[in-house]
């Protein structure tokens, strides 16, 4: 079945006109540390994805019409590096052998960084793998939440990992989770990442999601504090001419300017845009966090298993149809009710589920903070508020309408 146009009436008329963009593979749910805000429920389970599942991924999924000519494979949903480089040499070979020769696979690791070594860097380099490193800013912020099970901070090990990556000139980005503690310290965070030579920063908020049922950001006035943090970060970025690319700032500007010319794709609400597979071969789509989520009505969110089901089975399963229909209803409600829909595309299903218990709802804390507050901020910046006008030495204002920052 070609993945074009409308799926079927049973899927809530959900359209998925583009191939899968991202494949999240859970090589293991185990994690060697125990962050305070982690949403994964099974991070003490020492299981690993066996060859049989990797072969099914290659033989069934990567050869299916769900996949186009290129695909990012993100090893995540546990600490992938606990399995060692040899595991991935084997896994990469299985996927490459079974996938069509025309398919370009890009491997990415989302890691806490504590296990990165020269051997790991050799693997990253040999396979042109991209590394996403979790670091929550300066030590006093990072070690408050990112600790081992015995309570020790992991900051020093992450710094060592960054030094290794720099030494081998390996590209990496950082994910920094912002909690309420962080929001009044934008200068400290900016200078920290600047000094580390980080060029790509992704700020995640502490989310109510999965097994994490609380967030320090779930309090009155947090949207303004979040906005203030990013506003100051933006000003420092502009003033310094920093090479940092900050997802929340740059991508929001891009979406604001591009949303009419280029339709917004929300990879979390589009069926099969994102696929997630756990160690046992269970498959889910939409938000990757859904694979580990539980719900009274749906049970789990796996729509099938690659060891026992064919891709066609997954695409036409009643479970998928029910999930897709409820998510589509939520997206439709967002489209009707929310002015920010053109730059959002319907929010995050896993956050809707965690906060409201359903997928067909609209606004969440996640929306208010990461979409609305950030869009408001960047609209203000683009309109040329006084902060921006005076933000960089040498800026000249021409007739009060234009900027020159060179």
């Amino acid at each position, binding site marked *: 079945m070609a993945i074009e146009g409308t799926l079927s009436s049973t899927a809530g008329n959900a359209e998925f006109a583009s191939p899968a963009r991202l494949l999240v593979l859970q090589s293991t749910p185990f994690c060697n540390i125990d962050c305070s805000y982690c949403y994964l429920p099974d991070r003490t389970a020492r299981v690993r994805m066996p060859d049989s599942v990797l072969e099914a991924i290659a033989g069934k999924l990567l050869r299916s019409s769900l996949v186009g000519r290129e695909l990012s494979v993100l090893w995540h949903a546990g600490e992938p590096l606990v399995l060692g480089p040899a595991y991935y040499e084997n896994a990469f070979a299985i996927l490459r052998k079974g996938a069509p020769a025309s398919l370009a696979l890009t491997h990415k690791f989302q890691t806490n960084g504590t296990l990165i070594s020269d051997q790991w860097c050799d693997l990253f380099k040999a396979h042109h793998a991209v590394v996403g490193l979790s670091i929550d800013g300066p030590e006093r912020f990072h070690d408050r939440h990112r600790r081992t099970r015995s309570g020790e901070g992991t900051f020093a090990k992450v710094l060592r990992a960054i030094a290794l990556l720099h030494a081998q000139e390996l590209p990496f980005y950082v994910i920094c989770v912002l909690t309420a503690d962080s929001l009044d310290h934008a200068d400290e965070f900016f200078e920290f990442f600047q000094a580390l030579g980080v060029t790509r920063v992704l700020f995640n908020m502490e989310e109510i999601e999965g097994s994490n049922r609380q967030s320090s950001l779930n309090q009155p006035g947090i949207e303004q504090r979040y906005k203030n943090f990013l506003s100051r970060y933006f000003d420092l970025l502009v003033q310094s001419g920093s090479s940092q690319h900050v997802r929340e700032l740059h991508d929001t500007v*891009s979406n604001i300017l591009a949303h009419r010319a280029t339709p917004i794709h929300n990879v979390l609400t589009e069926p099969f845009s994102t696929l997630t597979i756990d160690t046992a071969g269970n498959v889910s789509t939409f938000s990757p966090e859904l694979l580990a989520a539980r719900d009274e009505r749906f049970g789990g969110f796996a729509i099938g298993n690659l060891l026992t089901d064919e891709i066609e089975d997954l695409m036409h399963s009643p479970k998928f149809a029910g999930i897709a229909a409820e998510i589509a209803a939520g997206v439709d409600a967002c489209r009707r009710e929310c002015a920010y829909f053109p730059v959002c595309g319907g929010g995050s299903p896993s956050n809707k589920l965690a906060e409201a218990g359903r997928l067909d709802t609209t606004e969440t804390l996640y929306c208010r903070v990461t979409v609305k507050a950030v869009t408001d901020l960047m609209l203000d910046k683009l309109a040329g508020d006084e902060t921006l006008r005076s933000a960089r030495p040498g800026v000249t204002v021409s007739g009060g309408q234009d900027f020159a920052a060179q």
Partner: protein
Amino acid sequence: MFALGNRLSVKIEPAVLSDLRNASTVGEKLAVLGAAGSRGSATLKDENGVSVHPGCVKPFMDGN
């Protein structure tokens, strides 16, 4: 024009800025800038002068 760090720059034509400042709601502001972006009157370009349009909201992590 202003630089978003040393890699990206934003340029908005004066007439668009005027419309943007006169817009009162989020919907109106997005409409002004979306229209300007589609006709090249508001641009985001990289250091090589190439337009940057991910066209994708909230990619999961940086995985795509």
